[in-house]
């Protein structure tokens, strides 16, 4: 077998000459893509920064602080009392990930505040709610529940409605918010209840605080740019090294051997 023919020793000078410019463009591109990916999160975070507590806010989104209360007879598939809950069966086989039998009970939830009980009406349409337990979840949505990671847990067996999807290489996951959980809700007050706001942030339940949700969102943006930074630096090192080799070769001080 004949050996593979390598390219000529020196890369063409034109390519090396362009390399730093290509690096600059690619790095700007990497950060640009990261910024594009995070546009919604940026906007959401900026909107959250501007929201004031309900007693200080004018019209528009405000933060209502209290405890979450659901129907008294609400229980999770595993039989625990909860203000609201959602659960599903997930595949434990990494080769074929999937989610089955998604159930949720998030309607008729109110926020109990010192001033009175405020029904969270936008929760009643519970099919289009984005549930986030940490910063790696999906991008923000109009209706959002941020719970932090500690309210989500695996449970044994396939209780209640989850039994339909029982099987090997599957596990049940439950996300349960106990009655009386402290929360901050961003909403617009209307007719004695909390409705979705017309502008961002439209509706958010943050457990325990809006600040925690903001930290998680900032962390998500931050991580994306950190990855962009590391990738850019590795690229800069590689191209810089190539340029350095080319520079050293072009400035190679020689001592001719046949010259006396």
């Amino acid at each position, binding site marked *: 077998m004949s*050996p593979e023919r390598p390219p000529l020793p020196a890369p063409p000078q034109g390519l090396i*000459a362009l390399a730093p410019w290509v690096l600059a463009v690619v790095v700007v591109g990497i950060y640009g893509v990261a910024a594009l990916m995070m546009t919604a999160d940026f906007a959401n975070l900026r909107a959250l920064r501007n929201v004031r507590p309900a007693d200080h806010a004018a019209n528009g989104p405000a933060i209502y602080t209290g405890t979450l209360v659901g129907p008294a007879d609400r229980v999770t598939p595993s039989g625990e009392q909860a203000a609201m809950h959602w659960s599903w069966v997930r595949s434990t086989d990494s080769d074929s990930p999937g989610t089955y039998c998604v159930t949720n009970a998030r309607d008729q939830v109110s926020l109990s505040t010192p001033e009175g009980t405020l029904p969270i009406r936008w929760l009643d349409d519970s099919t289009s709610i984005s549930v986030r337990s940490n910063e790696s979840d999906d991008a923000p949505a109009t209706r959002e529940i941020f719970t932090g990671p500690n309210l989500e847990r695996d449970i044994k067996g396939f209780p209640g409605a989850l039994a339909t999807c029982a099987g090997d290489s599957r596990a049940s996951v439950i996300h349960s918010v106990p009655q009386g959980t402290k929360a901050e809700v961003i909403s617009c007050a209307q007719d004695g209840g909390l409705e979705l706001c017309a502008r961002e942030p439209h509706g958010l339940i943050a457990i325990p605080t809006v600040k925690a949700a903001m930290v998680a969102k900032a962390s998500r943006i931050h991580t994306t740019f*950190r990855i962009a*930074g590391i990738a850019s*630096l590795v690229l800069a090192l590689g191209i810089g090294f190539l340029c350095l080799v080319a520079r050293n070769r072009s400035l190679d001080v020689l001592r001719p051997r*046949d010259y006396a």
Partner: protein
Amino acid sequence: MIEVVDVLLAVVASSVGVFFLRAYQTGIGMVRRIVRQETLHAADVKPGPAELAGVLRAAGEPLMSLSGQPAVAIKRTQYHTYQAKNDSDGYRTLSVTRADATRVELTDASGTCLLDLDRVLLFGPTSSYAITGANCKAKHPEIWRQVSSEHADGVTIEAVYIEETIIPDGITGFVSGTAEASDELAPGDDYRGVGRRLKLTGEANRPLIVSAYDEATVLEMLRAPLKRMVIVACVTFAIGAAAIAIPWLVAP
């Protein structure tokens, strides 16, 4: 919400930037030297830094480039591929750079100056060649000897790759170096050396620049790789700055 990893990224990026800036600084001294130095006539050269422009001619027998063009100096970077007996894989050797030079004189309208081509930086036309082993053996026995001396018997040299930079004999070029008295006497002078000739030579940190191009082209050729260092340094500094700025900008 700046974390340790952000500080680390900023520090590493800045360090890389400083490294490339240092690489720029080591080369820019040579550029400044040429820019500041006035180009003299051969007759006006005095001991010390000097720049000359004139015809570069071999004082003796010129060297022969691979293209057959006579040259006063040749820089060759070469590597080759080979195949060992009973081995299906091919290998390539590391590149080797070597330079050859003959005795050179620079002549202008005022006179002649010797060049001592030791510690030299060559700028001239560059050509690349890919020569089969058989061709190399037949047509370039000296290169073949160099290449084959690296191997024991039973090795087949498949191809030899050469990048050759030459200073053609008789070309009008540019040199920059340090003038000092040579051992040679000027024509017509006696052994007491009253009229010892000057030669242009290079030092360890100030190499003799010998170019087949004019001063402006040499400066451009020296600056181009340095500019690339600056661009890379700027990009890495920007990455470092972003590592600190972005957490600060997105802090809740």
